[in-house]
């Protein structure tokens, strides 16, 4: 029982209510009066025990309140194991088995397990934010599954390329499954749009690290399908992406996914890559046509090779441009931080409370009323909000600098591409879907030759070659 005078008063009036309760047919108006009397001191009245526990004479047994258990930890470890198994399987199917059919089957399994069964949570894309929050907020305990979902696909990307995108990610799978009429995106447009994921990544890390919001999860377009439930906005976003995905291959993966941005960088250095037949390329261009993700492009030949001096000069120019963009965006980022910080609930609450104190608002919001009930002083709130805002200023500057460097480096890439004489998937852009294997004539010939060495499956080979379109 609370012993303060305020709550005693309420306790007394509650007692009155109790006795009147026992009188049958209390008048509604009387009750309303009681309501009005009680309203003033109610603010500190949460959780006051007004009525003693009843003494039952009839031997009534009190039911217990059910508390359904949360998902068990064992199932969490199972998720990690399934992820590891699916990644290994994907690497095997993409790089050694080289089979589009089996990659597709694995992709459907991932869609069913990580998508519809796990309802899109936990996912590697969202885990970026958990890791960012854990790095910057010591009080946040990072779940093991979030760490593993963050790290495993990255480690796999270092060795096997983006096998996660190809066959494990449920968001990729749902888009891959609806790609019926692929159209080509112009390479320059592709290159420009592929910068967006890096910017999204930077923004997501800033908001997660300051504990403001997990924007990747908030704007996850497909999670409403996985849960078969969601707000109108989420569903519209998801349907929009799927309709777009019928024509443009995997629009989310290529032009938005922040995890894809990390994978893009890492898979550039991968140990094994998706390769067609580099030694016997016919320059037939079928694979270029077949790839719906614009990952295979024509050979790069430089008509006038640069002299080392020209090259050095061009590097220096690019570095200067990058630094200038980075520095200016850092200034802009720091300036916009005040606006960004309003996303944080404490900052927006502090602004609201300050507005009320200055008489700019007549009424209170639920949040400001709840704050006043806690009995904390406004100065405490303002101080907390100012700390968060200063974090945003620092973060905003870093974010701006990051944006600048990303944009600068992306501008540099076309000038520093590696000379290439054959058609081959770019390891960064290749989503490891395995479609091109079904089109490359040399690859099909290789498969056929392998089949004929093995008489058991020989009967299937004519059927297989018939699938060449």
């Amino acid at each position, binding site marked *: 029982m609370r012993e303060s005078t305020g709550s005693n008063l309420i306790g007394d009036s509650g007692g009155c209510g109790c006795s009147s309760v026992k009188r049958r047919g209390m008048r509604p108006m009387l009750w309303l009066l009681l309501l009005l009397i009680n309203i003033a001191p109610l603010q500190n009245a949460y959780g006051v*025990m007004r009525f003693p526990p009843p003494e039952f004479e009839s031997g009534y047994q009190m039911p217990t309140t059910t508390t*359904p258990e949360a998902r068990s930890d064992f199932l969490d470890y199972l998720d990690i194991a399934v992820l590891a198994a699916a990644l290994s399987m994907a690497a095997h199917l993409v790089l050694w088995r080289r089979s589009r059919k089996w990659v597709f089957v694995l992709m459907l399994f991932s869609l069913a397990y990580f998508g519809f069964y796990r309802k899109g949570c936990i996912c590697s894309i969202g885990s970026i934010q958990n890791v960012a929050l854990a790095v910057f907020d010591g009080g946040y*305990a990072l779940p093991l599954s979030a760490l593993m979902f963050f790290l495993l696909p990255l480690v796999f990307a270092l060795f096997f390329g983006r096998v996660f995108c190809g066959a494990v990610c449920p968001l990729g799978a749902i888009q891959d499954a609806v790609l019926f009429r692929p159209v080509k995106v112009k390479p320059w447009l592709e290159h420009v749009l592929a910068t967006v994921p890096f910017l999204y990544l930077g923004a997501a890390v800033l908001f997660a690290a300051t504990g403001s919001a997990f924007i990747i999860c908030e704007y996850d377009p497909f999670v409403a399908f996985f849960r078969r439930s969601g707000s109108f906005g989420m569903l519209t976003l998801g349907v929009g992406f799927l309709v777009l995905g019928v024509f443009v291959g995997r629009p989310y993966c290529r032009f938005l996914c922040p995890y894809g941005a990390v994978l893009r960088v890492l898979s550039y250095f991968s140990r094994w890559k998706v390769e067609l037949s580099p030694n016997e390329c016919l320059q037939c261009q079928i694979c270029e046509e077949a790839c719906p993700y614009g990952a295979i492009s024509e050979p790069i030949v430089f008509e006038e090779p640069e002299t080392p001096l020209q090259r050095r000069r061009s590097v220096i120019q690019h570095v200067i441009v990058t630094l200038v963009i980075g520095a200016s965006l850092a200034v802009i980022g720091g300036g916009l931080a005040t606006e960004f910080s309003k996303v944080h609930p404490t900052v927006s609450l502090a602004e609201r409370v300050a507005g009320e104190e200055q008489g700019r608002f007549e009424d209170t919001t639920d949040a400001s009323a709840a704050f006043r009930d806690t009995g904390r002083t406004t100065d405490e709130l303002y101080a907390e909000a100012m700390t968060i805002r200063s974090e945003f200023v620092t973060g905003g500057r870093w974010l701006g600098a990051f944006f600048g460097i990303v944009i600068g480096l992306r501008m540099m890439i076309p000038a520093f591409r590696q000379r290439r004489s054959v058609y081959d998937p770019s390891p960064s852009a290749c989503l490891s879907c395995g479609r091109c294997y079904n089109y490359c004539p040399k690859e099909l010939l290789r498969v056929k030759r392998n089949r004929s060495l093995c008489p058991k499956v020989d009967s299937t080979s004519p059927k297989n070659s018939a699938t060449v379109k």
Partner: protein
Amino acid sequence: MSKAEKEKGIERGHSRRGFLSGGFRGAMLFFFGMVTGFFTGKVRAERTVWQIDPFKCVFCTNCATECVLEPSAVRCVQYYPICGYCKLCTGYFDPQPINLDTGAENQICPTGAIIRTKLEDPYYEYTIDEELCIGCAKCVEGCELFGNGSFFLQVRHDKCVNCNECAIAVSCPGQAFVRVPAGDPYLLKTRETAG
């Protein structure tokens, strides 16, 4: 080194690019190892799940509308040990009832999810039919303001999908949503903690 030799070397992966790429791979693996090491002390094998601190709840009805599930994974629970078993329950009856009976027009619950059973005079038992409850907190408000507060909202973990960021938590004006260990996922009131 002749040009032919150089190209042969490139084919075998002995190029400068190949070397740099290998070095980067090694460095990144080392970095991931560091990250794992850094988090080993901080990682809690036990997951956390979302729960509502009933003392911070301000009955704003966001729980009914903001959840990604339809209907919401937040439901009202009746915690019997602190219930007053009132005959005139302000969590059950509308503030201005026409009659004090179980007619729908007299109930505060929009879905009629509260079952009122007479035990012995003057005690009545109130039970929540959880499948009907939508988590709107109307009964919670009534019980909290004039009763013992035995009705309060809790995230029901048989329904909650434990989103990485709870959509209700984002919009909760009382900032009542907290992460709790999955092994002990409810924040129930007791007579001691309540007063």
